[in-house]
């Protein structure tokens, strides 16, 4: 059965979560004054510390864990150590932690890990299919410059769009805008000319784009007279597109595929 206590160096070293570089612990030997030692990492089953003194494998230690306002006492055992230059890195597993403390520490580590990971996990493969059919119009990929603000007078953000249709556009930004937030837009269709628009954020998805983690925002245009300018602009752009024409009549006549509506 699974064992909650990690005994392997790689459980800690090079692990997935970075902890604050300043995190340290106090080490006390007998009655001598305590001193600070650096904590490299922690997991649900133990901690990893570095020190200039080597603790042999099997050494038992008393551990006092202070996290936020909580104070817990645990017993630990050195399960591995390796030398890195002048330093020794030790993996210490909790050999005893009372159930209440164990549960609390477990939740703390899971919460801390979740906080660290929240921005990094990519779910776009699952959510993308839902977005594909969100629009009623064909999209054109044109990286137009756009300014975004929360009122008509002050534009807070300058960025560019990913694509656009008659119904809305997708804008890319480092910032996350809230779903259902109304936004005022200046869509620059040339260096001198922009179309003022009002839109509503319909979705926000984190994606890796041009090697950066960014937010893709789906913005639906609110109906006003300026949307017709977007329609005209897109008509002109579509007219410039190269075209491929494919005739399917021959295939259809030889198969049972229904005719196109």
């Amino acid at each position, binding site marked *: 059965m699974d064992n909650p206590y*990690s005994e392997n160096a*790689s459980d800690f070293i090079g692990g997935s979560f970075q902890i604050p570089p300043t995190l340290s612990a106090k080490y006390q030997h007998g009655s001598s004054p305590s001193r600070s030692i650096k904590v490299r990492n922690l*997991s649900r089953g133990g901690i990893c510390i570095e020190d200039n003194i080597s603790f042999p494998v099997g050494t038992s230690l008393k551990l006092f864990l202070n996290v936020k306002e909580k104070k817990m006492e645990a017993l630990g055992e050195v399960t591995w150590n390796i030398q890195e230059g002048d330093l020794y890195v030790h993996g210490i597993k909790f050999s005893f932690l009372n159930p209440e403390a164990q549960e609390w520490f477990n*939740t703390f580590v899971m919460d801390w890990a979740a906080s660290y990971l929240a921005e990094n996990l990519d779910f776009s493969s699952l959510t993308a299919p839902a977005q594909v059919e969100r629009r009623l119009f064909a999209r054109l990929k044109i990286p137009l410059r756009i300014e975004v603000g929360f009122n008509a007078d002050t534009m807070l953000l300058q960025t560019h769009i990913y694509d656009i249709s008659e119904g809305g556009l997708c804008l890319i930004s480092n910032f996350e805008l809230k779903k259902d937030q109304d936004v005022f837009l200046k869509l620059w269709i040339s260096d001198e000319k922009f179309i003022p628009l009002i839109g509503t954020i319909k979705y926000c998805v984190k994606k890796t784009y041009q090697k950066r983690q960014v937010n893709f925002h789906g913005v639906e245009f609110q109906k006003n007279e300026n949307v017709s300018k977007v329609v005209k602009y897109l008509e002109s752009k579509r007219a410039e597109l190269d075209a491929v024409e494919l005739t399917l009549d021959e295939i259809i006549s030889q198969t049972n595929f229904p005719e196109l509506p």
Partner: protein
Amino acid sequence: MTKELSKERVEFATKKEHFEAAFKLVYREYLKKGYCSSNPSEMRITVYSALPDTAAFCLWRQNTLLGTASLIIDSPVGLPIESTYSNEIKTLRLQGRKLSEVSLLALNSDVISKGIKPLYFAERLRHLYHLFKPIFWYARKSAECTDMCIAINPVHKMLYSSLYFEQFGEERVYESVNKNPSIAMRLNFDQIEERCQKRTPGLYKLFLGNPLEMKKISEIFRWNEDDFNYFFNEKDFLTKAKPEQIGYLAQIYPNFGVKQNGQSILRKCI
């Protein structure tokens, strides 16, 4: 790390190769843990995988399957957990709960842990989160369930408790995982935001801060006859299915020639 994470993606299984990889991974991991016995197809499949509302989630790093889990939505054939916790599930249904169950959960220990004790390793936790967030939102929003159940080995109780699952079934022997011990846990979606936000802001941020919208799997995928035959009719995974489960499959796939023990099942109403 971000570079590594950016290559990892969660997807629904929608192709034969996806399902095969997922079923094989579950088999390998269950076999290692003693949750199943060896079988010639080297896959772990249940009758619930054949249901049109069952969504199989796969976590990939390029072409390597890192983990998988299936979400089964309560239906006329019930949930797998009922085999051991029948009364408890009935009680929840009587309370008006709409249930789902996480099943066939496996993380690829060959890739992830390199021999380290499972589920307690940071990378495993990360993969678990990566799978569980879409499962949570799928159950809650796409399938409009009120609860997500899971039968787990009691050694994992603390992990699930930290994710707000509550135990609702005592420790029992779970027949379908080679009689290993299990407990029944469920995540009640009611007021989950309020409970989570104050106590565990990190979990709130990850799981609830950015809701996911997904289509129902039945809008994206439906078994075709060839694949259904390959996974269900040509192998003996339906052998242990109950007659009403087989009857239900025959009813929803009337043209597939649903078979049990090599015998075609006529369409039945249950």
